[in-house]
């Protein structure tokens, strides 16, 4: 999330799962790790064994709360208040890590005159433009005081947000993608006040900004009581400092809010103040939902970002030419000063010889963004009939999309739809199985359902939640016409190239010149030595090599092909290097050495030879901060990397995330650029000023500091800023299919949140066709407190109806004390929890929680808010036509005897089989 990017430089988990075992205290918030990532949760359990304290702050008492030491229930959507309260506690009680904060954050930096905080403007920052509901940081004087950075002084009209260069979990490319945002000057040049007394220095702004978040207000907004809050605050402070570290772990309970990035920002600020980032058992653990969410954002199948978090060029003069694009997107200082190398190498990787100095490396061939093409915006467009064709590659919006009803309406209004999937999911059968849709005879959409290969039937790499790239090998051939997604995309590309073969139209040149040769050199074999039966499968190792990058001007004698890059340090911007995704450089450093597929166990606890973590196989980001400014570990107990005075280089258990030979006492000369501008005491090398940002002068579109706004749909008024109910920059998608109950109403007085069950996966496409999982959680249900149940006459186990502005669903009532009413500003507010796994296709079907949710987008990454919305509940069924299973249950995966295996070794559970 940009929340992390804006603060630390990279929008990725700072630490890795195994490191959680080294924490002295872990705060889980917006995460239900034990249920969503059970195997990852073994590391926190190890920490607990060693005496660490596990804290769970969550609206629901979950299976994780059950094993945590402390559980504090707070109302969904009040996270910033709780965290803000912690920040305030740390500041007012002087519990912050002075040396760390002074050296490694921008606490001392002075902000421009004229900046106005939400304190001064009743919930708005300076620079708000009513007309567009967006901020103009330039007008708002968000920047650092002192000479502005290179990219300043841009005065193009506000483009339609968001063109965040961040992707969902992107790098914090300073200067963001909003051309109006100035990139701050290096710290060396910006004004500083090491005494932290200057009224406009970040520390003072911070103190003023968070002064409101008192334990009392926290209690009133969150619904926990002050003692609970203070206990958490005390635990965090007591477990931070030189000797101890605290980690904060979050997941979609934070991201799926209209203030998601800002929630994460608040946590990041808290961690910087406590001095935890970059240290063992510290930092912020972002827990992703899926096997390669991280990879999908790194490689970026996101409309606004090219591989490696390079922003997709925008429509308009500033991105018309490569030069001006680099001018606007690149940076003068910090690691992003290498921007030109990344983009040129990408263009070379895509267009090969057709990309030359002469034609700007074919930069003009890249499509420009002239609006919001994010998933929700596009489906909104689709539902209004603006889209012809669509590809779904293993995605199920008809079941899992926010406001799934709108998503289905979108699919119904397509001309054609291509679905690549294993099962007949909701998105493949919306035209016949949707109980609340018009009959097929009224649905025009042409649907192609391609059966795809399962994981064991194909190879490729996945990037897990800790940026670790792991290769999975192919085990058997897929049966029938099943093919890997790669096969379908690759051969589609080949066919299209044929169709356009004789075109001379310039518009077709990108396709015709696209490098597209991934055929196997010799026919591929399966692990058992037999030849694969599949023809035309692309060699994904070649794709990974392209992603890793080559030196085009050198031939590797071993392969007779251009030499592979050993790291992105080798990249050039003169067209002599090609690289598909610069941050992945080093994953395939030499022929036949796929580091993602390396599985060597060493005695190094970081296991650096198991898979490859970007960047440069670093396992704990910004680990320079694990040593004090002089380069000595803060403490023996928390030793990670240090400056070795003899060897004159950085040493450590982990690979230092820093220039290996830059001494701690290095000070940049005036006017230094690139990495030379980063001092030896500045761990956050992706930042222009090399330090962690307590105050974010750029990147985020809804303010340099986090502010508590209520969710767009909330039964509660904003107690902190009564004049500003919800995020002023939030984007709504008006339309009959997406009504929003904005103002607090009595019509929808109950807070609803969605959640995940261990036994199911997302919309259920990968779990509701599986009888072994279905029997464990066979039906849609809703969790609610006995108090709410009594109030509405709802019976445990009986049916209940849940209504929102979008629609109504029926579900079984799970009346449990694991949910409790909250006392919000003197009045009781009820909350319910809805698992979002069910829909109308599969062995186990049920009403869909996502038929209740809305599409509305946070301004930074177009993220919806499925974690806090308003609803009404009643006893009994609402009379929906209940969906029926679309397939009959298969108790056994198969009853075929295991080949080449005697009866004595056949599975015991296939009763009567072979006996």
């Amino acid at each position, binding site marked *: 999330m940009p929340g992390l990017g804006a603060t630390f430089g990279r929008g990725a988990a700072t630490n890795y799962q195994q490191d959680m075992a080294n924490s002295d205290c872990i705060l889980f918030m917006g995460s239900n790790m034990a249920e969503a990532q059970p195997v990852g949760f073994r590391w926190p359990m190890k920490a607990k064994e060693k005496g660490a304290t596990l804290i769970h702050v969550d609206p629901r008492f979950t299976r994780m709360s059950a094993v945590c030491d402390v559980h504090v229930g707070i109302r969904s959507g009040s996270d910033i208040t709780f965290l803000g309260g912690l920040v305030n506690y740390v500041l007012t009680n002087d519990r912050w890590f002075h040396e760390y904060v002074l050296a490694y954050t921008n606490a001392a930096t002075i902000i421009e005159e004229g900046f106005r905080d939400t304190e001064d403007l009743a919930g708005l920052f300076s620079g708000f433009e009513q007309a567009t509901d967006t901020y103009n940081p330039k007008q708002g004087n968000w920047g650092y005081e002192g000479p502005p950075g290179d990219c300043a002084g841009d005065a193009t009209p506000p483009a339609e947000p968001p063109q965040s260069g961040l992707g969902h979990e992107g790098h914090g490319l300073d200067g963001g993608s909003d051309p109006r945002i100035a990139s701050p000057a290096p710290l060396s040049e910006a004004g500083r006040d090491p005494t932290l007394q200057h009224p406009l220095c970040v520390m003072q702004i911070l103190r003023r900004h968070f002064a409101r978040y008192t334990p009392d207000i926290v209690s009133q907004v969150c619904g926990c009581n002050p003692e609970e809050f203070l206990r958490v605050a005390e635990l965090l402070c007591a477990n931070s400092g030189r000797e101890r570290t605290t980690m904060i772990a979050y997941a979609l309970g934070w991201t799926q809010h209209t203030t998601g990035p800002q929630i994460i920002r608040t946590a990041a600020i808290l961690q910087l103040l406590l001095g935890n980032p970059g240290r063992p058992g510290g930092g912020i653990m972002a827990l992703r939902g899926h096997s390669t969410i991280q990879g999908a954002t790194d490689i970026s199948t996101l409309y606004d970002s090219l591989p490696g978090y390079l922003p997709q060029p925008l429509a308009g003069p500033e991105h018309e030419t490569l030069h001006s694009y680099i001018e606007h997107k690149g940076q003068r200082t910090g690691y992003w000063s290498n921007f030109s190398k990344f983009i040129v190498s990408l263009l070379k990787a895509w267009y090969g010889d057709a990309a030359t100095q002469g034609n700007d490396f074919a930069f003009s061939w890249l499509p420009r963004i002239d609006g919001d093409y994010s998933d929700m915006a596009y489906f909104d467009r689709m539902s209004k009939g603006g889209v012809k064709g669509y590809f779904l590659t293993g995605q199920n919006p008809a079941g899992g999309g926010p406001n799934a009803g709108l998503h289905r309406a979108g699919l119904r209004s397509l001309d054609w739809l291509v679905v690549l999937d294993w099962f007949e999911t909701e998105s493949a059968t919306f035209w016949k199985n949707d109980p609340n849709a018009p009959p097929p005879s009224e649905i025009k959409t042409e649907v192609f359902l391609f059966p795809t290969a399962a994981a064991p039937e194909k190879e490729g790499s996945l990037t897990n939640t800790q940026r670790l790239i792991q290769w999975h090998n192919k085990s058997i051939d897929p049966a029938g016409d099943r093919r890997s997604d790669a096969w379908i995309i690759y051969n589609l590309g080949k066919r299209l190239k044929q169709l356009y073969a004789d075109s001379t139209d310039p518009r077709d040149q990108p396709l015709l010149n696209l490098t597209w040769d991934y055929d196997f050199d010799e026919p591929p074999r399966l692990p058992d030595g037999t030849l694969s039966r599949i023809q035309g499968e692309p060699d994904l190792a070649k794709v990974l090599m392209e992603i890793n990058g080559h030196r085009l001007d050198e031939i590797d004698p071993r392969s007779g092909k251009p030499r592979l890059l050993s790291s992105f340090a080798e990249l050039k911007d003169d067209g002599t290097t090609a690289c598909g995704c610069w941050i992945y450089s080093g994953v395939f450093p030499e022929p036949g050495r796929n580091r993602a597929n390396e599985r060597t166990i060493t005695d190094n606890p970081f296991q650096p030879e198991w898979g490859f973590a970007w960047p440069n196989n670093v396992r704990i980001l910004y680990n320079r901060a694990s040593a004090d400014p002089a380069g000595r570990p803060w403490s023996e107990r928390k030793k990670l990397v240090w400056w070795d005075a003899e060897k004159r280089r950085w040493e450590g258990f982990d690979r230092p995330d820093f220039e290996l030979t830059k001494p701690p006492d290095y000070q940049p000369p005036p006017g230094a650029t690139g990495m030379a501008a980063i001092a030896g005491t500045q761990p956050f090398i992706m930042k222009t000023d090399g330090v962690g940002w307590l105050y974010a002068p750029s990147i985020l579109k809804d303010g340099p500091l986090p502010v508590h706004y209520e969710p767009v749909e909330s039964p509660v008024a904003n107690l902190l800023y009564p004049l500003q109910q919800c995020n002023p920059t939030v984007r709504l998608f008006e339309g009959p299919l997406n009504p929003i109950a904005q103002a607090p109403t009595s019509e929808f007085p109950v807070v609803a949140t969605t959640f995940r069950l261990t036994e199911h996966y997302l919309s259920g496409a990968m779990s509701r066709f599986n009888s072994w999982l279905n029997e464990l959680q*066979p039906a849609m249900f809703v969790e609610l407190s*006995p108090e709410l149940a009594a109030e509405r006459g709802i019976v*445990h186990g009986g049916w209940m109806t849940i209504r929102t502005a979008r629609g109504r669903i029926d579900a079984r009532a799970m*009346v*449990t004390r694991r949910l409790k009413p909250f006392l919000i500003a003197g009045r009781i507010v009820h909350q319910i929890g809805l698992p979002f796994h069910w829909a109308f296709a599969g062995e186990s079907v049920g009403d869909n929680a996502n038929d209740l949710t809305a599409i509305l987008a946070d301004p930074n990454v177009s993220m919806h808010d499925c974690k806090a919305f308003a609803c009404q509940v009643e006893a009994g069924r609402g009379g929906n036509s*209940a969906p029926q299973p679309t397939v009959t249950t298969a108790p056994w995966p198969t009853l075929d005897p295991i080949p080449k295996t005697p009866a004595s070794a056949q599975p015991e559970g296939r009763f009567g089989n072979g006996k």
Partner: protein
Amino acid sequence: MQTNSHRRGHSAEPPPIPGWGAGDGYAHTTITKAPQWHGGIAADALLNGLATGLFMAAAVSELALPAVFTSVAKVAYPMALVLLLVDLVMLVFDLGDPYRFHHMLRVFKPGSPMSVGVWCLAIFSLPLTAAAGLSLLAALGHDFEWARRIAVILALPFGFGSAAYKGVLLSTNSQPGWKDARWMGGYLTNSAILMGCAALLAVSAVMGQAQAVAILRTAVIALLIINVIPLGLLFANLQPTLARLFTRERRWRTGVLTFIAGTLIPLVLLLVGDGPVFVFAAVTSLLLGSLVIRFVYVMIPHTKPSESRAVSGT
């Protein structure tokens, strides 16, 4: 039979389920699993007793008073054999996999009442068959009296064992009620002899063996009274479980009716007269009562405790 049959498919309109938040979790759920033995086993228990009882009654009587009982015994043995075969067939088809009935003979396990029973029955059936066959031969005029005597003597201990194991099988286990039924064995074996004598009495009556009838009538009356003792003790064993499972009314009704049918009526009838009609009525009533007792007993673990106690409210 299907272990989880009640859990198949989707329930459209679910019944309200009592909350699960009371904190005592599974404290009110029945832990053990019922063996799914139903009416078949009750009937089997009756047939087993009748067959072995009839044989033993005949054997004991013949050996003690050959002059009076030989002719009756010669009819009783084949009858016992038929009853036993019917019983064995029932046992086999009560198995989950009848084609594996012979696996029972794979081992002999004194610790397993079923194993003991099966072996007793198996061995018992051989001399019994011989005795029955020789009895029929005798009817055809080829009488090998000494041989039949030997067969009968050989069969006696195993016949007794076949009768004695059943109650132990039904009390040496963890089923609610059964596990407390210390006197089940005592009752079953006792009532086996009772039923046997009763059956023999009926046979004698049909054959018009006045002396045999006279003797057996006295014996049956005595046994009817004696049998009340193990029955009473068994009932005492079961009382707590029955109280948990059934309402007071139902317990009384069943109890009284079975006592009347199984003990009083036969007693009265036999005291009143000794004509075949009386005897038959008495024997039928006795068997009926005995069957009901066995049926109730077998059903105990298969009966759900009354809901109000089984669940806990939120």
